[in-house]
């Protein structure tokens, strides 16, 4: 049976992963898009993104667009795997209800 993942289970991190996993693996989203979609503050989002990056679940791509720095995020294959396992674990808990 799949296990719950403590890093991902935190509500903001779970929502970040839900957004990134629902996109094509080749797509990247920027910080503003995530912040507006999740309705969180810059500081809060930044802290949770850092945790996910440290765990190896997301990759951070910093580039310059029209001479301005922009940060893009995407889920790694490992991140997609643990997110799917986490969802499977949640579903199995629900089935036992």
């Amino acid at each position: 049976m799949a296990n719950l993942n403590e890093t991902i289970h935190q509500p903001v991190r779970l929502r970040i992963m839900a957004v990134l996993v629902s996109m094509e693996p080749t797509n990247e989203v920027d910080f503003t898009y995530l912040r507006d979609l999740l309705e969180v503050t810059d500081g809060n989002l930044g802290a949770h993104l850092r945790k996910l990056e440290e765990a190896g679940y997301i990759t951070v791509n910093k580039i310059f667009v029209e001479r301005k720095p922009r940060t893009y995020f995407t889920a790694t294959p490992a991140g997609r795997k643990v997110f799917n396992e986490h969802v499977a674990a949640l579903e199995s808990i629900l089935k036992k209800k």
Partner: protein
Amino acid sequence: MNISPTEAEEALTAIQGLMERTRHSIASSGAHVSLIITGIVWLIGFICNQFLSGEILSYIWIGLSILGGTTATILGIRNSKHIRNPSASATAKRISLIWLLLVIYCIAAIAVAYPIDGKQLTMFIVLFVLIGWMAMGLLLSFSSFWPGLLIIVMALVGYFFLSNYFYLWMGILVGGGMIVFGLYIRYRW
């Protein structure tokens, strides 16, 4: 780590809701902007066509087209910066080429059919824009395909059955319809 079934249910509901919102947001990205802007341009332009005549109409259409085109381009570029696909530049070039071919086709078709009246010219341009837009819908996301098809049907109904009120029909129902669809995609999709 243990959680209750209620917590699991809440977490799954949050995940499903957010995944759905993300997919819709990506699928409709840009579609609502071009719909609303084209709708506003057509609404104002065609209502002017119905009630005004003479050289001033050309100036109104040129002004509206420049304003609408510039606004749509700026907003489109701004939207596209939020979601990036590093491997998509080849696709973007092909899409630009498809639009270029469509523009050439439209100009050639009008030149071959010339002389044509104002209503025929309007239908040529409207059909060209909407068919190109639907083709983009088929290529990129299905969200803009069905509204495009419905607007084509409405435009043809106006052309064949409501000749006296053609421009008013195009303005209020086709232009207004595009604005309503755009707002629907933006807020309810």
